[in-house]
């Protein structure tokens, strides 16, 4: 990632001219958590139904800028649907989403250049090599070619992908895919990064690499919003948490506040979701002991 001046200069180059003048104080150079700064994300009355099933059940949520934010919940809680709608990849049935004060559906120009996305369950252009993919995405974002190649080289180095940069993404492992996806999401130096399950199926070494990059990125004042169902991970990474279950937000706020009196976030979460009394009962009494058959 560049230093601060380069940061701003490139953003001005990357964004269409009409947007530069409208840039809000929520830029990455603004101090994190400044009073009066627009929140990173503001969601109001967000609904999404798939047939009969309600995936997202009228969410209201405000996420502050400059934080490392975790969206946690069990499988099927609506995390992916919510993140897809927030990033403009899925149209909500109703509701308002604002990113940095700009409406996602009303002002896509302002929003799309400010966010980086790593969705879950969608493919990449897998028949490109890692380096070609970054070169393609950077140029699509309107960055100058030399700058794209420079940044791509640095990202590939930092993410430990330099050795596989000429391999097709289709031959990458899960961890490598997540890393190249992260690189593609960071290439245009977004203010807010949305990551859907960035650590799912990732080996510990890659996970540590991803973690390091994300921590460096938030330290510069940028916002990371990621979803996960691994509580320990969220607890160790995030300073702000939103708990989702059954398509609703059950709790949100600073980590300590959501955790409350519970010893760990895991316990607090199970209490919120109401699933902490489901032990392995007597029905598996034959299991273990090393007896035959």
């Amino acid at each position: 990632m560049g230093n601060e001046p380069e940061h701003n200069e490139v953003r001005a180059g990357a964004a269409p001219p009409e947007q530069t003048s409208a840039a809000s104080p929520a830029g990455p150079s603004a101090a994190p958590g400044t009073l009066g700064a627009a929140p990173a994300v503001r969601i109001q009355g967000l609904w999404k139904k798939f047939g009969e099933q309600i995936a997202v059940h009228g969410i209201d949520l405000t996420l502050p800028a400059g934080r490392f934010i975790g969206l946690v919940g069990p499988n099927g809680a609506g995390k992916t649907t919510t993140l897809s709608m927030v990033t403009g990849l899925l149209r909500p049935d109703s509701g308002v989403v604002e990113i940095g004060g700009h409406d996602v559906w009303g002002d896509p120009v302002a929003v799309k250049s400010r966010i980086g996305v790593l969705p879950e369950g969608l493919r990449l252009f897998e028949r490109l090599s890692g380096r070609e993919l970054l070169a393609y995405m950077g140029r699509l974002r309107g960055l100058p070619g030399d700058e794209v190649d420079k940044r791509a080289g640095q990202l590939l180095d930092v993410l430990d992908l330099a050795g596989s940069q000429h391999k097709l993404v289709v031959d990458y492992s899960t961890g490598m895919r997540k890393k190249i996806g992260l690189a593609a999401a960071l290439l245009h130096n977004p203010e807010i990064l949305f990551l859907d399950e960035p650590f799912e199926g990732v080996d510990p070494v890659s996970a540590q690499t991803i973690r390091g990059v994300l921590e460096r990125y938030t330290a510069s004042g940028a916002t990371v919003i990621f979803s996960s169902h691994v509580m320990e991970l969220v607890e160790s990474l995030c300073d702000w948490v939103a708990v989702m279950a059954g398509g609703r937000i059950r709790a949100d706020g600073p980590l300590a506040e959501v955790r409350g009196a519970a010893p760990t976030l895991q316990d607090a979460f199970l209490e919120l979701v109401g699933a902490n009394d489901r032990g392995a009962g007597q029905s598996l009494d034959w299991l273990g002991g090393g007896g035959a058959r």
Partner: protein
Amino acid sequence: MSTESTAVAAPRAAAPNLTAVFVRLKLTLLRNGLRQSAGRTVAYVSSVIVGLLFAAGAVLGLIALRGNVHVGALAVLLTGILTLGWAVMPMFFPTGDETLDPTRLVMLPLRPRPLIGSLLVTSLIGIGPVVTLALVTGAVVALADGPAAALVGVLAVVLVVLVCVALARAVATASVRLLTSRRGRDLAVLSGLFIALGAQAVNIAAQKLGRPDGLAVLEPLGDVLRWLPPASAIGAVEATGQGAYGRAVAGMALAAVALALLLFWWQRSLTALMTSPDSSTLQAVEKDSARRSGSGEGGLVRLLPGGRTGPVMLRTLRYAWRDPKSKMSWATALGAGLLAPIVSSVQGNGSIYTAFSAPALLGLQMYNQFGQDTSAFWMVASTIATPRDAYQELRARACTLALVAVPYVTLVSVGAAAFIGPWSDFLQVYGLSLALLGALIGTGAVTSVIFPYSIPSEGNKNVAPGQGSIAWFSLFGGVLVGALLCAPLLGLTIWLHVAGLHHLLWILLPLGVLYGTGAAVLGLRLAAPRTVRRLPEILAAVSKG
């Protein structure tokens, strides 16, 4: 689904009789496969009927040829083709038979030697072995002359069928690494192309053999195949009938040795497979030296324009080469576009207007542009914010198509004029071709946005289940509109002909160029704002399946 029950059922019953277990497993898999849907049952039953009818026809044909001088060569050749079919079958249908996949058995406590016997017996169940048995029997009946030959014939039939089945198993086992790898799956997608090419070859061969005394052509080939197992066993039947017992013994021995070697090879690769890590834990070995120079990029890439256009064109061109689905569709369009004029030129009664198949088929490549991206379209969607972005994206894709299509259409038009003629019609055909190409690019851009559908990346299907009607509607509707768009030019052509103004026909070339460009640009302009409005809907449509 069925595999789970397999894994549970196999070890429990393994103790009594392995062969019986595998036979039952195969029958269960067949039955469960049929139970999945009525359509599958119908498809299976009709394939059985077609297979049996084909076999019956071939057998009757062979028996009718009994006594023909060249029937020996034909029977031997038929056996050779059958064997070849068995050898390549696992390449094209790697997932066709689940019991063919030895990796599913790796976790079971089985030894290779008894396993091979059981698997060989299991492989004999199915429509393929039955058809093979019928064909080989037919060949032997056509050849066998005398009781000795009949006796050898029975042995030969058994040997040939066993060699065929063992060959398919051995090849599948030896190449399972390849077949389960990405390259193998890519190959399977392209298999349709090979089958189409093979069908053409068969077609041409059949025409040649259909001529009087056509069978004589086979003799040189038959002479070679008579010494190649397992066709050598069929050769042995003929040799026995002719009293050449030495040749007969040699032929049978060759086939038997081949069977033994195949079983040995099969057992070795099975052992290797079951005692080494499976492909999912191995990193794909890749030749990436070609792409290593990629960052610098060769001279031609530098010629691509900057901005959004160049990268999109480069990506599309790379996909045309690297993505099996894109490659397949490009190859089909280029091949089929050429086929009509060539066939018509060979037959000698063709028309220069068959050259229109080139712009028609290449123009269709513009349809369902975003479906070709699969769900990776989100990467495109996340960078499109204005109609201008969308216009540039679509224009770049159209330019890529034009980059290939315009020279190709030129080539086909010139070729048609040269080989079919007359040259006097060249300018109007060329002009109308370019107009048609432009119209299809324009309507293709619009339908790509209004009727996107997803293309499953694996298998031979080009439309995800449930989206077939969208696909047909967009293709047929688009082609119809594209043709209608060309109506004014067609009208002008006809009028010029009717009015006898032949000296003015050249005007159709500049008009066609203008008209095609105009139609394409208009289509792109209409499609661009709709693309921006429908980005999430397009993404949802192309992510299905």
